[in-house]
C-alpha cells in the first residue's frame, strides 16, 4: 500500500506501525493474538524446562541432582506456569486471532482492554519467576497452594506469588469480558447463536466460566494474604478458621478451571475433524448442549478433589454421581467426533493427526478420571502418580495437542505460508510417542502406590520412572523442533491459498492468506 493511497483513507485502513512500539501499543486483535501465542510458547518452554528438572531428578531413586527444597519449587512453578502461563494464554491468543474472523467482526469489542490484558501478563510471570531468586526461594507448596502450607509454612515470597495470581486473574477476566462482549454484540448479520462456529461457542462458554471463577481464585489468595499479613484466621484453626475451607474455595475455582483448559480444545478439534474428514460435523447442536452441560456440571463436582478430607457419606456420594454424570456429555462429544470421521474421506495432514491423537488420548484421560471419581477407589489413588498420569493425559495430549493442532491448522492463514509437512509429521510422531512413554507408565506406578510430589521414591518404582524420564526428554526435545517449524513457517514456505484446506468451512477461510491486517471492516452476509 503506497503512502499516497493511505492518505486517502481514514486510519482504520492503515497497516501495522513499525518497530517495537507496534507491539506495545497495538490494539489489533491479530497482533495481540500473536503476542499471546508467543508468550504462551515462551512459558511452555520455561515450564517444560522445569518439568525436565523434575524428571531428571526422578530418573533414579535417591537424591541425584537437586535439593528437595528446590525440587518442590520446580514442581510448584511447573504447574502454575503451565496452567496460567502456557495453556490459558494460548487459548486466549487463539480466541483473539480467530473469534473476530470467525464471526465476521472487524476486531475485538474492547481493543484497548485487549492490549492491557495481554501486557500485564509478562509482569505477572516476571514477578512469579523472580521469586526463584528471593531469600527462602520460590513458592514450594504445589500449584494447588493448600493452606496452611501456603500460609503458615510458606516462604516469604508467597506474597509475590499472591500478587502475581491477582494480576493473572485480572488479565483472564478482562480477556473473557472482551470475548463475551465481542461474541454477543459483533456477529455478522445473519449469524445466529446456533450458527456460530464451535470454537466461538466453546470460547463463549469458557469466558463465562472464567468470569464466574477467576474472582473466586482472587478471593482465595486475598484471604491468604490477609491470614499472612493482617492477622485474620480464614484458614487457621487456632483462630476459628478451617484449612479445609481453603480446599473447598480453591476447588470451587479449580474444577471449572480444568474445563476452561479443555473446552476451547473441543471447539478446535471439531473444526479440524470436520475439515479433514470432508464431512459436515455430526451433531452440531448436541455439541453445543454438551459443552453447556459440562460447564454447568463443573460447578457441582469440586469436592471430588478432596474425597479424603473426611466428608460425610451423603456428600461423597453426591460428588461421585455428579462427577460421573459429566462422562455423559463428554461421551456425546467423543461419539460425535467419531461419527464425523465415519465414512469420511480422511486425509492425515498434521492438524488431523494431532486432532485424532487428541480424541484417543483425551478419552484415555477421561476414563482414568472416571476411575478417580469412584469414591472408595479414590482413597487408594488419591495423591498418587495415577492422578498425575490422569491430569497430564487430559492436559498434554488433550489441551496442548489441541493447541498444536490449531497452530498447524491456522498458521497458513496467519502467515500466508504452508508449514513443512514432513517436519511437522516428525514433530507429531515424536510428541505422540514421547507423551505416551512419559505418562502411561505413571498409571502403573501410581496404582502400585507411588505418592506424587516427592523427589525420591521406593526402589520398586525405579524401572518405570526411568522409562518415564526418557519419554519426557523425548517430548521436551521435540518441542524445540516445533519452535523451529513455526519459525520456518513465519519466515517463508509454500504460499497458502485463501481457502488453505480443501473443504474448510468458516468465514476465516474467505479472507486472503495471510489475513490482511484489517478484516471484515464491512460485515459479511451469513445465510
Amino acid at each position, binding site marked *: 500500500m503506497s503512502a499516497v493511497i493511505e492518505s486517502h483513507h481514514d486510519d482504520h485502513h492503515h497497516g501495522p506501525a513499525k518497530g517495537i512500539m507496534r507491539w506495545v501499543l497495538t490494539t489489533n486483535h491479530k497482533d495481540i493474538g500473536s503476542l499471546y501465542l508467543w508468550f504462551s510458547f515462551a512459558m511452555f518452554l520455561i515450564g517444560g524446562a522445569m518439568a525436565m528438572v523434575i524428571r531428571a531428578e526422578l530418573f533414579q531413586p535417591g537424591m541425584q541432582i537437586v535439593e528437595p527444597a528446590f525440587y518442590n519449587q520446580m514442581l510448584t512453578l511447573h504447574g502454575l506456569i503451565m496452567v496460567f502461563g502456557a495453556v490459558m494464554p494460548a487459548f486466549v491468543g487463539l480466541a483473539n486471532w480467530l473469534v473476530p474472523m470467525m464471526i465476521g467482526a472487524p476486531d475485538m469489542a*474492547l481493543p484497548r482492554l485487549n492490549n492491557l490484558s495481554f501486557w500485564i501478563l509478562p509482569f505477572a510471570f516476571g514477578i512469579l519467576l523472580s521469586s526463584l531468586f528471593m531469600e527462602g526461594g520460590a513458592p514450594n507448596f504445589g500449584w494447588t497452594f493448600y493452606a496452611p502450607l501456603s500460609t503458615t509454612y510458606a516462604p516469604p515470597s508467597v506474597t509475590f506469588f499472591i500478587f502475581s495470581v491477582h494480576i493473572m486473574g485480572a488479565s483472564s477476566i478482562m480477556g473473557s469480558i472482551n470475548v463475551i462482549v465481542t461474541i454477543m454484540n459483533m456477529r455478522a448479520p445473519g449469524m445466529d447463536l446456533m450458527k456460530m462456529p464451535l470454537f466461538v461457542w466453546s470460547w463463549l462458554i469458557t469466558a463465562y466460566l472464567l468470569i464466574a471463577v477467576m474472582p473466586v481464585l482472587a478471593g482465595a489468595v486475598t484471604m491468604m494474604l490477609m491470614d499472612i499479613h493482617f492477622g485474620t484466621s480464614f484458614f487457621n484453626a487456632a483462630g476459628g478458621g478451617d484449612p479445609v475451607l481453603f480446599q473447598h474455595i480453591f476447588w470451587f475455582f479449580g474444577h471449572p478451571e480444568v474445563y476452561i483448559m479443555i473446552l476451547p480444545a473441543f471447539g478446535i478439534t471439531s473444526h479440524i475433524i470436520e475439515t479433514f474428514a470432508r464431512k459436515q460435523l455430526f451433531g452440531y447442536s448436541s455439541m453445543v448442549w454438551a459443552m453447556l452441560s459440562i460447564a454447568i456440571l463443573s460447578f457441582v463436582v469440586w469436592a471430588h478433589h478432596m474425597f479424603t478430607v473426611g466428608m460425610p457419606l451423603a456428600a461423597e456420594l453426591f460428588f461421585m454421581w455428579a462427577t460421573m454424570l459429566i462422562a455423559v456429555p463428554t461421551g456425546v462429544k467423543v461419539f460425535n467426533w467419531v461419527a464425523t470421521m465415519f465414512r469420511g474421506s480422511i486425509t492425515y495432514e498434521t492438524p488431523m493427526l494431532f486432532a485424532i491423537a487428541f480424541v484417543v488420548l483425551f478419552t484415555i484421560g477421561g476414563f482414568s478420571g472416571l476411575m478417580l471419581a469412584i469414591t472408595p477407589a479414590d482413597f487408594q489413588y488419591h495423591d498418587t502418580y495415577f492422578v498425575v498420569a490422569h491430569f497430564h493425559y487430559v492436559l498434554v495430549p488433550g489441551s496442548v495437542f489441541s493447541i498444536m493442532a490449531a497452530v498447524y491448522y491456522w498458521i497458513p492463514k496467519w502467515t500466508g505460508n504452508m508449514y513443512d509437512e514432513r517436519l511437522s509429521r516428525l514433530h507429531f510422531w515424536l510428541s505422540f510417542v514421547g507423551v505416551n512413554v512419559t505418562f502411561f507408565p505413571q498409571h502403573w506406578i501410581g496404582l502400585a502406590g507411588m505418592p506424587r510430589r516427592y523427589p525420591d521414591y521406593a526402589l520398586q518404582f525405579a524401572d518405570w520412572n526411568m522409562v518415564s524420564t526418557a519419554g519426557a526428554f523425548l517430548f521436551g526435545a521435540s518441542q524445540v523442533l516445533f519452535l523451529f517449524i513455526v519459525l520456518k513457517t513465519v519466515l517463508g514456505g509454500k504460499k497458502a491459498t485463501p481457502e488453505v484446506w480443501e473443504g474448510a468451512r468458516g468465514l476465516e477461510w474467505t479472507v486472503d492468506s495471510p489475513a490482511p491486517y484489517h478484516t471484515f471492516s464491512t460485515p459479511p452476509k451469513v445465510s
Partner: protein
Amino acid sequence: MNNSAKKTLKYLSLAVFGMFFFSFALVPLYDVFCEVTGLNGKISQSEEASAYESQIGRDLTVQFVSHNAEQMPWVFKPSERIMKVKTGKYSNATFYVKNNTNKPMTARAIPSVAPSNANEYLKKLECFCFEEQFLNPGEEALLPVRFIFDSDIPDSINNVALSYTIFDITNYDEVEIAHHDMR
C-alpha cells in the same frame, strides 16, 4: 462501542464483583453448612441440654483424643483415654495441661467429634474449649468437660471420639503473627 455492548460490559463487570464477594460469602456459608449438617465435627452449643436427660439410656464408649498443634510445647493429654458412659446422663472428664516453658502462655483448644453424625446428639455443658486457657511458666491444671449424649443417638454409633487440638495463641492479638517468628 454501541449501547448493547456497553450493557453487556456492565453486566459482566457486575458479575465479576459479585463472584469476588461470593468467594468471601463462602466463608460464613461454609460454617453455617457445617453447623446445620454437623459436618467436620463442628459443635453447636445449645442451652437445651436438659432436654437430653432421660432414665432409659444405653452404653456408649467415648474416646478422648488430644493433639498439640505444631510448635505448641504444652503437655496436653486426657486423664482417661476411654470412658464408658450412659446416654441421657451427664458425664465428666478432665484433660491435664502443663505449661512446661519458662514464659506465660495462652492457648485455645479446638474441638472435633467423630463420627460427625454423632455431633447433633452431643451437648457440652461445660468445656475448656469454650474459653482461652492461660498458664504461667510451670503451671499445670485439670481442664473439665461436662457433656451429655441424647438417647436418640443412632444404634449404629457405639464409639464416639472427642478430639481436641490445642493451639498457642499467646501472640494472637498482636499484628505480627506467629508465623513470622517461626522461621
